């Protein structure tokens, strides 16, 4: 914990992250953003020739799609909903009074809007693709990036509440999408090596909620559905997941009605880059001054 606080403090002191008063909610400096932009160019270089269709959604998604996704079944503790004031002038007066007195929670009267904060960059994609009808021959490949929200305040700079996720999502047959996932596991290791980061890949699970979640965790691990690429940032014993490789079987295909050209249910897989985590791994490994980073790393990122 001390180590986490101290790395966070060092990042604040160096001006790379900017404190906001909320754990896990930070501003980023130009330098920090430059590292993320450089790493995203590296992703483009490695994945660009695959011809993925790029889509960019804002960090909020349609609440109806969020509800269909089943996110609340598995991760209610992480979700963030957007609420707004929807009252009349009288309600406004009581709201202001309530805020002034400060005894009651002024947010109680806020009403849910049609927007929910995006929990993962690919969530708005599935209903969007399903609306188009059957996938073309050869399936689908998509390139996404979005700020994502997860309610898990922490002093670990690698566990932020609002962070960016870059993703490739593949839709097709089982062998097609599992080959895609394997390809990116191999590419991920190579990419991290090229920027001087020591990585391991391990089987993983999502943070499913509650006791029932334990069963989902066991199911996920038994079936090798999730792998993570781990890099030591705030702890060597518990390295941080900087990429994840997920095979959803046909669960999203069934849920959203994603079908292949022949009408059979599509299997899906996604590979995600935790962009802030990768930047933090670089700063942690090579130092807070990018000018001091090894020449080979600088050449890969900015060459």
């Amino acid at each position, binding site marked *: 914990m001390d180590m986490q606080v101290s790395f966070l403090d060092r990042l604040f002191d160096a001006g790379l992250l900017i404190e906001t008063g909320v754990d896990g909610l930070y501003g980023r400096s130009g330098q920090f953003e430059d590292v993320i932009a450089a790493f995203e160019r590296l992703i483009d270089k490695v994945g660009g020739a695959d011809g993925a269709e790029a889509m960019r959604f804002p960090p909020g998604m349609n609440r109806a799609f969020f509800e269909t996704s089943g996110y609340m079944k598995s991760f209610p503790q992480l979700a963030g909903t957007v609420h707004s004031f929807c009252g009349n002038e009288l309600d406004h007066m009581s709201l202001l009074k309530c805020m002034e007195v400060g005894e009651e929670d002024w947010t109680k009267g806020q009403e849910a809007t049609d927007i929910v904060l995006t929990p993962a960059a690919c969530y708005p994609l599935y209903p969007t693709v399903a609306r188009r009808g059957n996938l073309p021959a050869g399936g689908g490949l998509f390139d996404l990036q979005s700020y994502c929200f997860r309610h898990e305040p922490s002093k670990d700079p690698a566990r932020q509440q609002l962070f960016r996720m870059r993703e490739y999502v593949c839709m097709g047959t089982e062998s097609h999408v599992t080959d895609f996932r394997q390809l990116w596991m191999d590419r991920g290791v190579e990419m991290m090596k090229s920027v001087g980061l020591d990585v391991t890949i391990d089987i993983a699970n999502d943070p499913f909620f509650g006791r029932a979640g334990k*069963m989902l965790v*066991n*199911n996920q691990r038994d079936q090798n559905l999730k792998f993570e690429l781990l890099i030591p940032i705030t702890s060597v014993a518990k390295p941080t997941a900087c990429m994840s490789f997920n095979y959803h079987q046909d669960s999203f295909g069934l849920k959203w009605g994603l079908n292949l050209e022949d009408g059979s249910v599509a299997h899906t897989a996604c590979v995600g880059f935790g962009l802030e985590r990768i930047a933090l791994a670089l700063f942690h490994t090579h130092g807070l001054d990018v000018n001091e980073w090894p020449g080979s790393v600088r050449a890969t990122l900015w060459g």
Partner: protein
Amino acid sequence: MNETIRELLTRVGGLPVAVTELEDGADLYAAGLSSFASVQLMLGLEEAFDIEFPDSLLNRKSFASIAAVEQTVSHILKAREAA
């Protein structure tokens, strides 16, 4: 017990096939049991038999077939008697 399990499976399993048509040994996942439905089944079994699944039995194997569920529940009931 077999009947209670089948009733629960009909109620929470969300299977596209009739539970009455499933053999005791039939693979429930192949029959369409989702991870989430298996969790619902687990919670239903806990209530019906007044038991608590230990973490070690919260896995796919425990819910792989009606026979496997029967075996798992019997195992938990027996362990409770022994305690």
